[in-house]
C-alpha cells in the first residue's frame, strides 16, 4: 500500500480537481457570456464588449431591484442574527427538556422546499395586508435565515464550555453583563458569519420573492427571472456576474471571520 502511494496521490488529486471544476464551472460560464458581443445568450460567446454592463447601468429597473434586494437582505440578516442567536442560546445553554426537538424545528426551514413555505406564507401575508411589501419578503426570508444563524452560533457556543459564563457570574456579572461581556464576544464571529449567510441567502432567493414581492419591491433574482423569460439578452449575464462577484466577496468575508475565530479562539474584542 505504501509503495502505491506515489501513484495514488496524483490520481486522487486529479479526481478532486475534476469535482471542483464540475462544482464551479457552471457558475463561471456567465462571466464570458456577459462580455459577449452578440445580441442574445449563446455559448461559446462571440467577440468582446462591455455594452451589456453599460446597458445594465443605464436601466434604472436594475438599480431599483438592487436597492430592493438590499432593503430586504439587510433587515433579514439583522432579524435572523437576533432570533437565531436567541434560539442557539436556548438550545445549547438552556436547560430545556426538549432541546433536540426545538433544534430540529429551528433547522427545518432549511430542508423544506421554499415553494411550500411560499404557498403557506402567501395567504397569511395577504390577510395581514403585507403582500408585495418589503416587510413580507423580510419576514419570509428571515424564516430561512434563522436556521443559518442558529447553526453557526450553535457551533460557536459548543466550541467553549459553559463554565466561562458560570465563572463570569461568580465574579459578579449579572445575566445581562455576562451576555455582553463574555458570551457575545465569544460567539460574535459565529453571529457575523450566520448574518452574512442569511443575507446571501436572501440576496439569492427567488421562490419566496416571487410570491411576496410586487412590481415596486421586486428583488434582483426576481427581475433576472422575469427578464430571462422576456428578453434573454446578455444583460442578464452581466447582472449575474455582478451578483456572483458580490456573493464571492461575502463568502470571502465569512471565510475570513471563521478562520479568525478558529485561530484566535473568539478574539473579536480589544
Amino acid at each position, binding site marked *: 500500500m505504501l509503495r502505491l502511494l506515489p501513484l495514488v496521490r496524483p490520481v486522487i488529486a486529479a479526481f478532486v480537481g475534476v469535482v471542483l471544476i464540475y462544482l464551479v464551472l457552471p457558475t463561471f460560464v456567465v462571466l464570458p457570456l456577459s462580455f459577449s458581443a452578440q445580441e442574445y445568450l449563446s455559448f461559446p460567446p462571440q467577440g468582446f464588449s462591455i455594452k451589456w454592463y453599460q446597458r445594465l447601468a443605464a436601466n434604472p429597473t436594475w438599480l431599483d431591484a438592487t436597492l430592493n434586494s438590499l432593503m430586504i437582505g439587510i433587515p433579514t440578516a439583522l432579524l435572523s442574527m437576533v432570533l437565531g442567536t436567541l434560539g442557539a442560546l436556548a438550545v445549547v445553554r438552556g436547560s430545556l427538556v426538549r432541546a433536540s426537538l426545538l433544534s430540529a424545528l429551528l433547522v427545518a426551514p432549511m430542508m423544506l422546499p421554499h415553494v411550500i413555505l411560499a404557498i403557506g406564507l402567501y395567504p397569511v401575508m395577504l390577510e395581514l395586508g403585507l403582500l408585495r411589501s418589503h416587510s413580507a419578503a423580510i419576514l419570509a426570508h428571515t424564516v430561512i435565515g434563522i436556521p443559518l444563524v442558529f447553526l453557526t452560533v450553535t457551533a460557536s457556543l459548543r466550541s467553549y464550555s459553559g*463554565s466561562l459564563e458560570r465563572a463570569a*457570574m*461568580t*465574579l459578579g*456579572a449579572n445575566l445581562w453583563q455576562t451576555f455582553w461581556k463574555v458570551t457575545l464576544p465569544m460567539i460574535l464571529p459565529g453571529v457575523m458569519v450566520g448574518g452574512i449567510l442569511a443575507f446571501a441567502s436572501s440576496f439569492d432567493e427567488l421562490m419566496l420573492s416571487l410570491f411576496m414581492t410586487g412590481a415596486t419591491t421586486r428583488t434582483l433574482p426576481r427581475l433576472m427571472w422575469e427578464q430571462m423569460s422576456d428578453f434573454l439578452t446578455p444583460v442578464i449575464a452581466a447582472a449575474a456576474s455582478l451578483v456572483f462577484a458580490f456573493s464571492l466577496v461575502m463568502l470571502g468575508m465569512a471565510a475570513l471571520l471563521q478562520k479568525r475565530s478558529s485561530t484566535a*479562539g473568539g478574539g*473579536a474584542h480589544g
Partner: protein
Amino acid sequence: MASRGASVALKGLTKRYGTVVALAPTDLVVEPGEFFSLIGPSGSGKSTLLGSVAGFLPPTAGRIELDGKDVVSVPPYQRNLGMVFQSYSLFPHMSVFENVAFPLRLRKVGSGEIKRRVERMLEIVRLPQLGSRRPEQLSGGQQQRVALARAAVYDPRLLLMDEPLGALDKNLREEMQYEIRQFHRTLGATILYVTHDQDEAATLSDRIAIMKDGRIAQVGGPRELYEKPGNAFVAGFLGEANLFDVADVKANGSDRVLITTRDGLQLASDRRDASLAGSLVACIRPEALAIQQEGAAPQTQCRSYIPGRVQDVVYTAGTVRYHVTTVTGARCLVKLTSQRHLPQFDVGQAVTLACSSADTLLIQKE
C-alpha cells in the same frame, strides 16, 4: 489573617432531581478561614454541594448560611464568593490583566486601584510579567494561577474550587498544591475544595468530608479520618485497608476484645466504641502489619497473628508491598518501608503477619 474567612453552614441542604437524590439532607459547618475539602467517588454529591453553595444549583430544601445569612435565594453574582474551575475558564478574548481586572471593573473600582490590585494579585501567584499575554499563550499551570488570582482579587471571603488541579499532570499538580497552600495562608479566605484525589485533599486540608451516595460519610482531619475511620467505606477510600468481616466479638480482659472473622481468623483489638452495632469489620492498615517467618518468636506488642503465604512482592520507590494469602483464603496487603536490614520474603514462602491490638480497628461496616 484567618479571621478574614467566611463561615459556611449548611442546614438540611437537599437536592433531588425527580426521584433521584443527588444530595440527601446534609448538615455541615465550615469554620472561618478553614481549608475544607469534599472528596468522594463521582456521583457522590460533592459537586452538587459545591454548585449549590456557588448558586448554580438551587437546592430542593435546606439553608446555606454564609456568615449566618441564608443565601439560597441570592443569585450567584451577588454571593460575592470566588470560584475556580477545573477547566480554568479564563476569558480567551481578554488579556491576563483584563481577566483578573474583570471582577473589579464590574464593581466599578477606579482604574488606578484596579492596576494596583491586579498587579499585587499577579505577584502573589508569581506571574507578574504576564499581564499582557493571552490565556492561550500560558501553560495549564499558569492559566490556573491566573484563575486563582481572578477569583481572589476582589477579596471574597469564601473561595470554591472544583477539582482545580484535575486537568494537570502529576508533577505540576504537586507544585500547584504547594501554591494553593501558600495562597490560602496569604489570603486567609475560607476554601471549600472538591477533589477526587485523596492525597491532594490530605495534603491541603484542615478538615475533609468524605461523601458517598449523596451523603457525608465522615468529617474529620486527615489524620483522624485515616486513623479512626468511621466505617469500611471511609477506611477503603482514604488510603488502603485490609478489611475482614466480623462474625463474633468477645470481651478479653477489661480493655481488649477478641474478634473472630467470618473466615475464621482470630484478631485482638483494643476495645473501642460501645455504640458499634450491626455488621462490623476489622480494619488493619497495610503498614500496621509486620511480616515474619512462619514459626518465628511472637513480638511483644503484637497480639494478632495471621498465618499465610506470600503471593506477590512489589518494590516501588522506598516501599515494599507483600501480597499475602492467609490460610483462610483472604488476601492481605503488607506495606513496609524498604530498609536494607529487613529480611526479605519470596513468593510462595510461608509467613506470619503480626499486628498490635491498637492497630486492629473494629469499625462499622456501613
